[in-house]
């Protein structure tokens, strides 16, 4: 077989491109819809809280309930379509994931009962950083650096919002950075990593 240097360079570039595209498409197939859903819910809830502060509890209770319903809907749809990939260890991972998220919230609420935040911003920043910590752990677990980076970046934005942004603009800041971060990442995955 006669392969020139140019052919070899081109083939290796193609190999790298396809390998990256495969990994990205599989991450997008599973995580993209969840990020879009929760990003949208965060954007709407933070904006709602900013403009209608007296209804903040209702806004967050209703939007969280809608988020959980949406999550169940996406899981059912993905299950119905069949998986894009299968791994012998899938069942073990699925069970661990199902146990992981309720435990994260159980611990978050246990810690809340100890630290007792004195206002809504403290409560919100605590819960957002707890959820982002869970993203980082999931990212490390499944080998997705994007999840790790997303978790760390949104945590950073939350800390900046908590420590440096005036309280009256906290929700606007979080709508753009945290909600926008999740929504933007999810949309990017769906549009560019198909």
């Amino acid at each position: 077989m006669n392969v020139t240097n140019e052919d070899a360079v081109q083939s290796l570039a193609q190999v790298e491109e396809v390998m990256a595209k495969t990994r990205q498409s599989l991450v997008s197939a599973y995580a993209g819809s969840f990020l879009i859903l929760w990003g949208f819910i965060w954007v709407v809830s933070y904006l709602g809280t900013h403009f209608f502060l007296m209804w903040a509890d209702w806004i967050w209770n209703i939007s969280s309930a809608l988020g959980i319903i949406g999550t169940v809907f996406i899981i059912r749809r993905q299950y119905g379509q069949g998986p894009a990939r299968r791994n012998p260890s899938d069942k073990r991972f699925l069970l661990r994931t199902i146990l992981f998220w309720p435990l994260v919230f159980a611990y978050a609420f246990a810690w809340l009962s100890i630290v007792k935040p004195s206002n809504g911003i403290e409560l919100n920043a605590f819960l957002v950083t707890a959820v982002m910590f869970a993203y980082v752990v999931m990212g490390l677990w499944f080998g997705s650096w994007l999840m790790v980076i997303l978790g760390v970046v949104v945590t950073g934005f939350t800390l900046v919002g908590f420590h440096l942004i005036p309280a009256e603009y906290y929700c606007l800041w979080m709508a753009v950075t945290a909600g926008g971060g999740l929504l933007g990442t999810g949309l990017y995955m769906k549009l560019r990593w198909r």
Partner: protein
Amino acid sequence: MAELDNTIHQPVRLQIMSSLVALDAGEEIEFVHLRKLLNLTDGNFGAHLAKLEEAGYVKVKKTFVVRKPRTFITATGKGRDAFEEHISALKQIIGAQQKNNLKGK
């Protein structure tokens, strides 16, 4: 000295193998997902997949998921080894060219 693999070198088959090797060992990808990812037609994809299966480089499993027929594809150990050797051979060609260029200077 690593050798180029005639079966893998064909561009479509190189793409298929690259995609499968990107997965963990034993991990399988769904037929339609991979076909769409590589932007191939059903016939073209099926024909190249058959060649790779014939060479023992991939394993194709037909199964039912939620009562719907699904086909999953995975790279075999032999396929992964052949792919690695092919990549090494390509790198050697580039390395040899770089050496020649340096000698020429």
